[in-house]
């Protein structure tokens, strides 16, 4: 039968070309190719159990990578969390008794702060006359329900935790600046004070805890101002900051130059 096989021509040219290509290409072959071959070859000689483990690991890796690529982005997740938070806040507010609603509303509107464009410090509603407060009330959406509606309608709504909140400077009634830190610092040496004062301080402290925001909803309102709505541990709105476009001015070191407020701003905030 071998006699009947076709005669083989000396494929001199193909042989030479292949040899040159083979050796030159091999030098250029990347280590990745060798690594891939190594992996494939090892998979081939694996036992069924090991193959199953390898496949399961690979599948898990693909799912993780796939989730990273095709899953929701961090901002989408943050926004979804924010929307959920607003819904919870609404539900919480709706479930309050009328008396509690009124009480919370009263406390809340005292905690609404605003800063006009270019101003370095925040103003509080308490600084104003009754007429001014009434005028600002609607403008600042100082009611609980209005604030939540405003937050829900915002396109850039997000949640920021309390630790991420910059410490703003406030303009006190007498024109003195004071800050968040001061508001949160409990007075020391209570024992030396009279019982009446101690009771007042205690009452104030309880109120402070109740009105202490643990997280913030941040969004841009319909007027283009940045709003930060603080929620307490029960998801009740307890504080609000409305700031104009040049908002940074209030947190910058230069705006506190020579001012007492400077002491309350950490170096990290200044930088």
């Amino acid at each position, binding site marked *: *039968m071998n*006699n*009947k096989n076709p005669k083989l021509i000396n*494929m001199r040219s193909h042989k030479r070309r*292949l040899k*040159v290509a083979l*050796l*030159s290409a*091999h030098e250029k072959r990347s280590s990745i190719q060798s690594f891939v071959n190594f992996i494939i070859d090892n998979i081939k000689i694996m036992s069924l159990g090991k193959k199953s483990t390898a496949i399961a690991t690979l599948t898990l890796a693909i799912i993780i990578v796939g989730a990273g690529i095709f899953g929701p982005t961090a901002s989408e997740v943050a926004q979804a969390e924010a929307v959920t938070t607003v819904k919870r806040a609404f539900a919480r507010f709706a479930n309050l008794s009328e008396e509690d609603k009124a009480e919370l509303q009263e406390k809340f509107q005292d905690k609404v702060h605003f800063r006009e464009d270019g101003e370095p410090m925040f103003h509080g509603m308490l600084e104003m006359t009754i007429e001014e407060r009434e005028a600002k009330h609607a403008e600042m959406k100082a009611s609980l329900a209005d604030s939540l509606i405003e937050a829900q309608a915002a396109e850039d709504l997000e949640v920021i935790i309390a630790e991420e909140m910059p410490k703003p400077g406030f303009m006190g009634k007498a024109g003195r600046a004071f800050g968040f830190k001061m508001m949160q610092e409990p007075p020391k040496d209570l024992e030396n004070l009279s019982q009446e004062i101690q009771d007042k301080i205690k009452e104030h402290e309880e109120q402070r805890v109740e009105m202490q925001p643990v997280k913030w909803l941040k969004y841009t309102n319909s007027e283009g101002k940045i709003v930060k709505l603080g929620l307490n541990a029960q998801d009740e709105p307890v504080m609000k900051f409305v700031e104009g476009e040049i908002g940074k001015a209030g947190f910058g070191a230069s705006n506190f130059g020579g001012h007492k407020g400077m002491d309350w701003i950490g170096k990290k905030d200044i930088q």
Partner: protein
Amino acid sequence: MEKQQEKQLIEQAKKDPQAFAEIYEEYYGPIFGYILKIVGNVTVAQDITSETFFKALDRLWQFKWKNVSISSWLYRIATNEMNQHFRKNKKIHASIEELLEKSGIELEDEHDLREEVIAQEEELARSDQWREAQKAISKLSEKYQEVLSLRYFEDKKIKEISEILGKREGTVKSLLSRGTKKLRSIMSETQPNLKSGIIDTQDAISPASKINQTHE
């Protein structure tokens, strides 16, 4: 090539691919011929030969010397490459021309290359008996094709076929026996009047008798 010399070359080639050139020079012809006789197309045979040697060089690091010539390993790679070609019509990963172009190498023998292909095709056309056998074998399942091609086209012994395919000698014998019967059957169906068929001719050794010779 002496086995000891081959062993040394392989060890050297694992560290320095240039040493692979000598192995290539030795086995290019037999591997190309083997592939050509099975696929029956010169260009396809060239491509599969290229792929076989590329794969061999890539995987040389995992070749373990067991006192068996590397040719068995090359035949096995070639067989697998052909099986893949027939199963998936697999495309080779890069043509020689692409690789040469990427490497900035110009070889001025295009004319010779075409002439070689034409000359080999003419030789194939002249081999009627081989053509008939090749067509008949291609109708068999892969396991029979492998053993019959190595036995009758390459004149390999049972032991060698066993080494190449990684099958026991008993299995090879059994496959050869059954495959030959099937081959006869196919050839008698397609060419009932063939008196000088590849199996029955005096020139060709009858598969059955050759098996007996080998076994006995």
